[in-house]
């Protein structure tokens, strides 16, 4: 057996107050990226590269500093809130534990902050003494977000935060996330397979394919004038209310144990030439702030 190159040669930055969408299909490496930011990758994962947070390289810092950054400055929310909340702890206990682990405040003060965070997510504070199972799925996800926000992080990593929710509840939560982003000037790294959500919430978007970034740019550019063939085909394959004709991409995403040579998308790409099999295309700038990794990018402008 060899190594699965879940992510390969990725470089990405998130500005303060910006929200960036990470989109891709199953196995594209998008969740691995979120885990790498929080250093919660499975044991024995080999990681190369560096991660900077506000100018500090995380790999160079001492434990206490890392604990501060990864605990308070960067917060994470997952797809399934039920598996992340302890069924034996009330919501109040969760908040007190989180706050006290990082900050020296009185229980009274911690409780006040918890109530404020819950209120900002529109969860009735009267239910703070309840256990996780006493809440609906949407409420649990709101609680998870409130818990992530209670320490006022400057970066929120959200991995498919609304995927298990119904469409109306999803829309409610996205609306709240947007409000919070505006109010707190928080940066958001939103990992999702749903391009509709990215179009509604994000400023920029990075498209992942088989462990690589194939295109990155502003939401407007990527959605209205994508350069990379994969981005274009992925956008066409979305079934939305105005869909008149079905489009799909031939083939399946590659096995990352032995990824295709050259451009990893070439076996599925209708425009692939000989060079695509041989040479890995670099991420090049095609428009201002719009980069794509395609040998023939200029043909698609």
């Amino acid at each position, binding site marked *: 057996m060899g190594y699965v190159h879940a992510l390969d040669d990725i470089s990405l930055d998130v500005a303060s107050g910006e929200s960036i969408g990470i989109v891709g*299909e*199953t196995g594209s490496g998008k969740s691995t990226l979120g885990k790498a930011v929080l250093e919660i990758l499975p044991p024995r994962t080999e990681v190369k590269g560096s991660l900077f947070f506000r100018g500090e390289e995380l790999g160079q810092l001492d434990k206490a500093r890392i604990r501060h950054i990864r605990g308070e400055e960067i917060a994470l929310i997952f797809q399934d809130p039920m598996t992340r909340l302890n069924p034996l702890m009330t919501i109040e206990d969760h908040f007190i534990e989180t706050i006290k682990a990082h900050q020296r405040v009185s229980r009274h003060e911690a409780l006040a902050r918890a109530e404020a965070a819950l*209120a900002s997510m529109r969860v*009735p*504070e*009267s239910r703070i003494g309840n256990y996780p199972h006493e809440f*609906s*799925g*949407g*409420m649990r996800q709101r609680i998870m977000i409130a818990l992530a926000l209670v320490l006022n992080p400057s970066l929120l990593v959200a991995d498919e935060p609304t995927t298990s929710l*119904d*469409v*109306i*509840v*999803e*829309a*409610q939560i*996205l*609306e709240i996330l947007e409000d919070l982003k505006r109010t707190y000037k928080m940066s958001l790294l939103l990992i999702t*397979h*749903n*391009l*509709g*959500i*990215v*179009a*509604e919430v994000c400023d920029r978007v990075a498209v992942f394919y088989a462990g690589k970034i194939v295109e990155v740019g502003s*939401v*407007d550019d990527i*959605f*209205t004038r994508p350069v990379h063939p994969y981005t274009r*085909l*992925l*956008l066409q*394959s*979305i*079934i*939305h*209310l105005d*869909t008149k004709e*079905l*489009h*799909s*991409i031939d083939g*399946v*995403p590659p096995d990352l144990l032995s990824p295709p040579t050259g451009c990893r998308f070439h076996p599925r790409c209708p425009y692939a030439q000989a060079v695509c099999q041989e040479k890995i295309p670099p991420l090049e700038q095609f428009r201002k702030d719009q980069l794509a990794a395609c040998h023939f990018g200029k043909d698609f402008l």
Partner: protein
Amino acid sequence: MYYPVKGPFIQRLFRREKLFVHAVDGVSFTLKPGEIFGLVGESGCGKTTTGRAILRLVDPTSGIIKFEGTNITSLKEKQLRPLRTRMQIIFQDPHASLNPAMSIGRAIGHPLKIHGLAWREEDVKKQVLGAMREVGLTPEEQLYDKYPSEVSGGQKQRAVIARAIILKPQLIVADEPVAMLDMSIRAKVLQLMLELKQKHNLTYLFITHDLATAKFLCNRIAIMYLGRIVEIGSARGIYQDPKHPYTQALLRAIPIPDPRKRAPKILPKGEVPDAVYPPAGCRFHPRCPAVLSTCGWEGRDFIDLLDEHLSGSMRAVDDAEALGSIDDWWAKGFAAGRRIGTQDPQRLAEKVKAVLAKATSPMQQAVQSVAVQGESLIVQFRVPEQLKQTVVGDRTVECLLYQ
């Protein structure tokens, strides 16, 4: 027209301890041969239960299911078996639908053996290979001996489809057939389903939460909410001019993959309530943006209003003192109340009326009385108007706005 499947008033009540989950209630619709009928709704609305009840995979508490003119509601399994070849189901999760220890080829041919339609290995294999070609599982000879773990999700779902069509059914219930698949291969599977329908004149009951896919695929659609059909009609009509406030809300909530169309949305409040205690009157009324005073306001709606009032940031200290904690209040049917205790009954009643007056919904107009009865203060609501199915143009809607 003749109607192959008919299920008027399937009233289903599942026993669970001493309570009932009203999974599906009073649902009635007819599938026309060769059409794609969409059953659309959020999780827990009863769409899957309805689909399974039609195939008698679960037994309805009451109601009638007709298939090709035959009432199959109380047929015994033995009598049902020959009919089962004519109706098949495709489930959401292709990984769970295939036995991991059975090769793809054997899995697809299994129904032939179960129903005794082919015995000789070579006959079975010939039909299986034919079905595999039809669903695009090629090269079929190579894939025949592969196990589910060795093929992709899209191929697995194709195998499930092949297994469903090998018996040449008339009706296929497709329960979220593409929800687990990646966006880039969804369209392929849907395209395949459309081709098979054309070729074999199949009828589909397409169960989904995805309104966009339903719009593309279906001829007619039923929108379900908490076990009831709230709107039913032509797909085109429903999308052009949705009538029921719930349908309108669902359509508004879909994220649009176009950043130029970003717009604030008017969304219904809260979430789908517990089906063990469905709301009175119209089940959507507590969340409905267009709710009337006659839609079904009841005691617990008042408790919710009170809770909101007492926990909001605008709460007044003397309110909390006068109204007491939310735990002091009870709700039962169309009434809510609390023991007066040491409170001044007059002041309490006035506070309650003030809370009602501040409600953004027309709940206040639904209140019959706020009065002292014995040692309690009772808020009594009027009995709501009877909800009926109303024909509006090409649609049948269950909403007081159109009654």
